[in-house]
């Protein structure tokens, strides 16, 4: 309890600071009313030792004398208050209402100030400082010190009035990120084929979203499969699908794959997402990890073009591919954003928001005064209503499953899909 004396002595006397009751309360974790008393006591004891050592400002709350009222009511009893507060000082049109005044005064002016009051309901020390406070506006900085302490959590016990009914919207941030991650993962399968195949590129974004929605729910595998078909001649595509197939290849055959593409459950789906996720990683130019990976894939692609045999490629790739995958998982979302056709940042309440990439036409006047129309890529934010109902279970548990499903990636079913596709070919 006596620690406040030390604290105040250090801060006020030694460090020349202005300390308000709120700051003291927050720092020492005491109730604001106790802090006010501490300030008073410190002020009293210090000035008893050495007059003028510390200077206080007081917060006075009460009823002031009506300005026009004659000052004959010197004794300030209750009866006088009512009479003067109803004094006809205001024009007859408006009602006269009781007015209270909250006033911050320095101790030098306290006496004069109090004389203006009919009744003081409340008075306490607002702050103490080593020097007299001339301009109250300068106290702002002292008062704002409170903000620097994170008063959000602890403040509740210290403030005197609580409100049990306070409602906050539950933070969607966490769910958001998870949703975004999963959505992003799901988006990639679409974005990717679109990139590798020119025909795909012209596809309007609307279908993409629909498929994203589907992908999010469960029927994901179909779409990638079909686009794979179209983009089948893409080297990278092949390389990757093979890379993905690799673990499966050991014992799972193509036959297992076909059914799984129909009823792939959540896990295989996220498997796909992950795989594709990694597929799109070569694109981002940033990050050393990606660069090496890209080179690796380039190699791989060339290899694939030379050689039609899958086994070789897979074996070659087995060691390099597996490890970086694990490492690069965390940084993946960020660079991915630059490349995707769209980024879904929110999918809550069945409403999806995000940004999508579009080409904008822009007319500019060049230095010779000609109008030049250029096309430049840009981002456009969108938000739309259509959203898959099954998204919800996904969003709630998205983050953990996404991680959890990682080890299962090598699971037979998901791998089987792509495998089957290739074997059909």
């Amino acid at each position, binding site marked *: 309890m006596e620690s406040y004396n030390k604290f105040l002595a250090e801060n006020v006397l030694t460090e020349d600071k202005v300390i308000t009751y709120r700051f003291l309360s927050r720092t020492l974790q005491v109730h604001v009313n106790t802090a006010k008393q501490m300030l008073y006591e410190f002020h009293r004891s210090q000035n008893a030792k050495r007059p003028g050592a510390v200077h206080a400002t007081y917060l006075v709350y009460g009823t002031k004398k009506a300005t026009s009222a004659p000052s004959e009511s010197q004794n300030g009893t209750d009866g006088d208050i009512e009479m003067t507060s109803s004094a006809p000082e205001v024009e007859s049109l408006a009602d006269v*209402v009781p007015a209270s*005044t909250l*006033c*911050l005064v320095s101790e030098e002016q306290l006496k004069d100030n109090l004389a203006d009051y009919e009744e*003081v309901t409340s008075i306490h020390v607002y702050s103490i400082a080593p020097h007299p406070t001339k301009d109250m506006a300068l106290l702002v900085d002292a008062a704002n010190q409170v903000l620097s302490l994170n008063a959000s959590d602890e403040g509740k016990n210290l403030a*005197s009035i609580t409100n049990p009914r306070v409602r906050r919207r539950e933070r969607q941030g966490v769910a958001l990120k998870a949703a975004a991650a999963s959505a992003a993962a799901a988006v990639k399968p679409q974005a990717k084929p679109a990139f590798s195949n020119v025909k795909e590129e012209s596809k309007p974004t609307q279908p993409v979203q629909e498929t994203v929605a589907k992908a999010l729910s469960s029927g994901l595998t179909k779409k990638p499969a079909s686009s794979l078909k179209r983009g089948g001649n893409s080297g990278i595509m092949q390389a990757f699908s093979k890379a993905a197939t690799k673990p499966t290849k050991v014992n799972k055959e193509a036959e297992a794959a076909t059914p799984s593409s129909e009823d792939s459950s959540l896990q295989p789906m996220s498997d796909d997402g992950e795989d594709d996720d990694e597929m799109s990683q070569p694109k981002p130019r940033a990050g050393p990890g990606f660069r090496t990976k890209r080179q690796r894939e380039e190699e791989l692609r060339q290899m694939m073009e030379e050689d039609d045999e899958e086994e070789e490629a897979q074996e070659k790739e087995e060691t390099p591919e597996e490890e970086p995958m694990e490492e690069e998982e965390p940084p993946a979302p960020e660079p991915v954003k630059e490349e995707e056709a769209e980024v879904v940042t929110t999918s809550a309440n069945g409403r999806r928001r995000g940004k999508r990439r579009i080409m904008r036409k822009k007319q500019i006047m060049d230095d010779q005064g000609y109008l030049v129309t250029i096309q430049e890529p840009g981002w456009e934010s969108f938000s739309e209503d259509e959203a898959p109902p099954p998204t919800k279970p996904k969003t709630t548990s998205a983050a953990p499953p996404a991680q959890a499903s990682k080890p299962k990636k090598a699971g037979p079913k998901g791998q089987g899909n792509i495998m089957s596709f290739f074997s059909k070919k």
Partner: protein
Amino acid sequence: MVTLDEIAGTGLLQKPSDTPIESLERPGSDYKSLDTFALPNDRQYKQQFADIYFLRLTKIRPAVEEIATAAWQDTELGGETATKVDRVLDVRQGQLCWVVGTVYMDMPLKPSVLEDVSKDRWISAPTTSDHYYDGAGGESVMLEDDSGRVRLVGSVLKDYFLVTGCIIAVMGTENSNGEFEAIDLKFADLPPQPGRWSLSKPPQKPKVKNEDVEMTDSSRPQPSKKIAIVSGLEFSGTDTSYAMELNLLLEFLLGEALDPAAQSELSQISRLIIAGNSIAKPSEHDPATDKKVLKKYGYDSSSYNPLPSQLLDTFLSSLLPSMPITLLPGVQDPANVSYPQQPIHAAMFPNARTYTAAPPAPGQGQAAALEPGWLDAVTNPWEGEVEGWRVLGTGGQNLDDICRYVDSEDRLGMMEAMCRWRCSAPTAPDTLWSYPFQDDEPFVMKDCPHLYFVGCQPEFGTKVIESPQGQMVRLVLIPSFATTKEIVLIDTETLDVSKVKITA
């Protein structure tokens, strides 16, 4: 007169003691926000403004006619009985008659669209003059409806506030100049007033009732709740002259300042309503507004000062854990300019927005928001029900614009006139910029409020008006905090008003 000796050593002016401090709890706020003034999201601005006048006249005419009929039914003047004329153009010279129409004021300094067009000014600037009358008597008052327009003359016009857009009934005759000599005017008077708790259910308080019956004096009556209304906080990036007052206001509302007795009084404040102008106008000296030709792509911190909205956000998010807030936009706030202003977007408050209501799910539409947000950003004007009372509030533009028509400082009288006209923004869309409504005219007061407040006013004022049917409306002018440092507290049982002045 209070002397230092009297108060020394009492209350908080003593050594800290170990007495446990009881924690105070704020009462709940019964609150329902109406979306009377909400605009559709896909609104268009292609349509004409004439529909507003037509709708307003159609809506208010029956009430005016009823009152006029009652008053002038058998009025005889010089052996002639007053007759009702349906259209302004049907007025015959020399015939004593009465007619209902919309007032149009032609004033020398009033901005005019036709003038703008004729001078080839296509971008109209906000009005700069603080009044439209010129003092030389250049004004003329017209009465118009969809058929035509007639000029009103007569000394009786001086006895009433008249502005463009209000609906009146006039009795008189047309003189040889084609002017209508008005003998008497009638307004619609106060609209029907819903009872208290018409939209929400009163809180169940069986306990209090029992105690009242059985042991009246043993239980102290529950102190009635209060709502605080403030306007013109004007958080500024450059002007810090009232920053300390703002701080004290926050501490006052939070109940951190003052002593336990005062704190328990303050804990009865169940809601804060901010009636406009939370953010200051950028000053001329603000470096942010200096025209620098230096062009920079994207966010330029030298041309934009985010401090005001940050300060507002800090203020709101500090206060919200303790108190729900209703936030009306004002003329300076980051909302649309034209009436009705739509809610300030939650993106302005990165910290406080977690207290706002969740955006409506797409399938449910706007009406489906079950409960209003703890921080409720609403329209201006705004209509709602607080503690069972119907409340109508505005950010002040409607009243400020009426003041430009009338050479008077009686703002309460103008507020009263608005209620009696049954129109909360009569001068829209003539001089008060407004959305071109087509299907509905929300400024017509369908229901009479119990409490009508107008924010951002030069000084405080309040009075109660009554209608012949016994309806009572509490009118309150909310002063701008930045200039007066005053906030208004309203008792939710009696609608009594008190104010608190904060000085530093």
